[in-house]
């Protein structure tokens, strides 16, 4: 590997969007037979770098080398001709076409009469070798997400990719599927491909990367070989000189006993379908003045649990009580009216109407609070929302702006300000700090604790164990729709909780 030039190398890459420096990467390379983890927070510039390598963006400065020779990559077509393939977060399959047609469509210099048999042969060959078996005649629209990803990889391999860039590939996968993907990546590595795995999850790079490049604010913060890599040094590289958050004062444990039941789930099961994870026999009791954290790998029923509490999903068996009343069949409006607030993970998709103004978005879902005849009392709404923004310490956005024009972080602030404005009695927070900058993250966590101290019940669903440890009174681990374990603060340690999140606890217990 020392004598051989890298498969793909980039030097002195710079890319600006307006005044924002998106990338300033002095050196980056991937070698034959290597899985390179490209790690960094949201917005650290990982995707920008990948898109530059794939010819999607043209860099303002810098050189790219393939096999040691300088190349010009002006478009994805150029990149593919050089053997660079990329699998995007959003797949690019044509839903109506079969898997075979999708793969064929992607081949270089496809003859006028499609050589189906030849392509089929090669597909079978690759599928067997790399665990990428998919029915070639199935229309792409009928494929599960994991299979779609397989097709994306297959079509890159058949098109002759030697460098494969995967942008957050596990984001859409269930844990089992992720394991399959890593197995595939391992096989591809042994075939001599260079693989760039973009992710913000430490676990993944630690599990399968040979080298880890950590990006921070558009720059390469450091490169670590897998032998030296540990969670601590990667975290230090990812977050750099970010001030250590002042530890919040320890929770007042006595409060538990005083609170009465806010939310009670009694042996609740829900049906799956539509890609939902069914919940099985979930029993949770959440009292006023208490925060229960829900830990788990994404896709193990967290979203469904949130939907269940909010009334979007009804229990198939069992009962849901809100303040000791049977709320199993309440509508979303009834649940919200009763004092439940929701902080979702994707504000643009789940909590905002992009075409409406910020003010109009703030008015939605407020029940009858601002009714004024047929209309709404906008002045009172403005006053309340100004107060809420101030209390949260968020800058007040222009209420007349279209919500769709706000950045993701600002939109999340709008949603938080709306949901926390009326002192909700129960807060369901689903990844509430995802996409927020460090300062706002601290603000939100403080606010959630503050709400709890003032008597609200908080159900915090998060992937961030530090966040969960910091503000939960109790921690529940969900695994495949079942409560895998429950922890009290004295056992809040990653090595204790972690095994239950990946279903490895049985082995641990046996050992």
């Amino acid at each position, binding site marked *: 590997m020392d004598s051989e030039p890298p498969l793909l190398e980039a030097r002195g890459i710079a890319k600006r969007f307006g005044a924002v420096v998106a990338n300033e990467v002095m050196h980056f390379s991937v070698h034959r037979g290597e899985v390179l983890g490209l790690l960094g927070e949201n917005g650290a510039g990982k995707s920008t770098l990948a898109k530059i390598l794939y010819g999607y963006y043209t860099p303002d400065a810098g050189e790219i080398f393939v096999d040691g020779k300088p190349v010009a990559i002006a478009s994805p077509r150029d990149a593919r001709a050089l053997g660079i393939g990329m699998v995007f977060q959003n797949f690019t399959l044509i839903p109506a076409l079969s898997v075979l047609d999708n793969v064929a469509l992607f081949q270089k210099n496809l003859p006028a009469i499609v050589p189906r048999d030849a392509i089929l042969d090669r597909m079978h060959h690759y599928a067997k070798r790399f665990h990428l078996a998919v029915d070639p005649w199935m229309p792409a629209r009928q494929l599960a997400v994991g299979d779609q990803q397989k097709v994306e990889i297959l079509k890159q391999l058949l098109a002759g990719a030697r460098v494969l860039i995967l942008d957050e590939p596990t984001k859409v996968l269930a844990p089992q599927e992720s394991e399959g993907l890593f197995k595939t990546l391992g096989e591809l590595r042994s075939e001599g491909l260079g693989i760039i795995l973009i992710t913000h999850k430490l676990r993944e790079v630690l599990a399968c990367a040979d080298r880890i490049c950590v990006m921070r604010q558009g720059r390469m913060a450091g490169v670590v070989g897998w032998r030296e890599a540990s969670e601590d040094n990667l975290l230090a590289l990812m977050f750099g000189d970010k001030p250590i958050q002042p530890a919040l004062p320890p929770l007042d444990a006595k409060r538990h006993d005083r609170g009465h039941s806010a939310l009670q789930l009694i042996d609740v099961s829900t049906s799956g379908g539509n890609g939902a994870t069914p919940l099985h026999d979930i029993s949770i009791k959440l009292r006023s003045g208490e925060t229960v954290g829900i830990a788990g790998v994404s896709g193990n029923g967290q979203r469904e649990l949130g939907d269940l509490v909010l009334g*979007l999903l009804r229990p198939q068996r069992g009962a849901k009580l809100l303040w000791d009343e049977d709320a199993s069949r309440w509508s979303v409006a*009834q649940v919200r009216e009763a004092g439940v607030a929701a902080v979702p993970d994707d504000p643009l998709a789940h909590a*905002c*109407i992009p075409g409406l103004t910020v003010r*109009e978005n703030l008015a939605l879902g407020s029940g009858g609070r601002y009714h004024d005849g*047929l209309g709404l009392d906008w002045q009172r709404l403005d006053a309340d929302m100004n107060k809420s923004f101030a209390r949260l310490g968020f800058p007040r956005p222009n209420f007349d702006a279209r919500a769709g024009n706000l950045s993701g972080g600002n939109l999340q602030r709008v949603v938080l300000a709306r949901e926390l404005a009326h002192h909700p009695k129960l807060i369901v927070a689903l990844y509430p700090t995802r996409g927020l900058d460090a300062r706002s993250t601290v603000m939100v966590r403080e606010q959630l604790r503050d709400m709890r101290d003032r008597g609200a019940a908080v159900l915090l669903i998060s992937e961030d164990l530090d966040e969960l440890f910091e503000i939960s009174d109790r921690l529940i681990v969900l695994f495949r729709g079942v409560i895998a374990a429950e922890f009290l603060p004295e056992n809040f340690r990653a090595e204790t909780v972690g095994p239950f999140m990946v279903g490895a606890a049985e082995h641990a217990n046996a050992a």
Partner: protein
Amino acid sequence: MQHDAVTLWACASARAKAFALVAAVALGVFATLLVAAGKDPLKAYIDTLTYVFGNAYGFSELLVRMIPLMFTAVAAALPARIGLINVGAEGQLYMGAWLATAGALTFSDQPAFVLLPLLTVLGFVGGGVWALIAGVLRAMRLVNETISTLLLNYIAPLIVSYFIFGPWRSPETASYPQSPPFVDAARLPTFFHSRVHLGLLYALAAVALYGFVLTRTRFGLEMRAIGGNPEAARRLGIPIVRYVLIVMFAAGGVAGLAGMAEVAAIQGRLVSELSPGYGFIGFLVSWLAGTSPVGIVTMSFLFALISSVGDILQITQGLPYAVVNILMAVILFVVLGRQNSGSAAR
């Protein structure tokens, strides 16, 4: 607020410019076609303008034509705001006319102050229930409303035909299938010794109410929320199913009023050829107007003017009325071309 007035004015002038441009390009292309057919487009246009604006009668006929178009345009625009596509205004118009006729024939001994409100309510309910069928099917996630409203269009005229060929067939004009004439008390009042009738006020009120509800009430806000992002609306507790049902009923009701006005003011009885496709033209009007209230009025005016062109061509140059369909199609193309391809492809 001054700010509002300024934006309103800016909007209005921009809309007027767009309107003028669309009309100019469409009339230009249509003129080329007329020349190709050996006709004189300039004469046709001048004839139309002198006919429509040269005397009170011509202009009053233009207003009469605008009435059903404004109704059916609102019937398409209202559901569009919550993301539903109602192409069934034609059928809803027929059912409104049918139920209004039932009322007029049954309660023919009642005075006008009873009959007119009654016919209005029945016209509204007739069209509303017809649209509600599609609304219920949609709410139950059984049939897409575009399909069901379209198919219901084929059924409604047959129901009307059954009644005028059968139970309601007028004994006086047995050779021609139509209902007996309405009593005078069941006829909508007309104004200025013309065929312009009370329906004009109804239609303008419907457009104004539509605009008011959408922009000034919380129901309008919630409707725009559903149209803008149904998933977020659901998660915010907005009762989407209830809105689907109410909006479809109201939209069908407004289309039903168009049918009621046609039988109670223009025809004076139920006939089989009630509408030369008002429901479909209204859909076009709403679509071209971008569902804005002012746009609905101006586009209704434009399409009423176009039908006048058809009349004139028929009378003075011996061309079939159907040539105006070409003009309408040209306008549609011009408007489609003006929108950026991104939003049109959506």
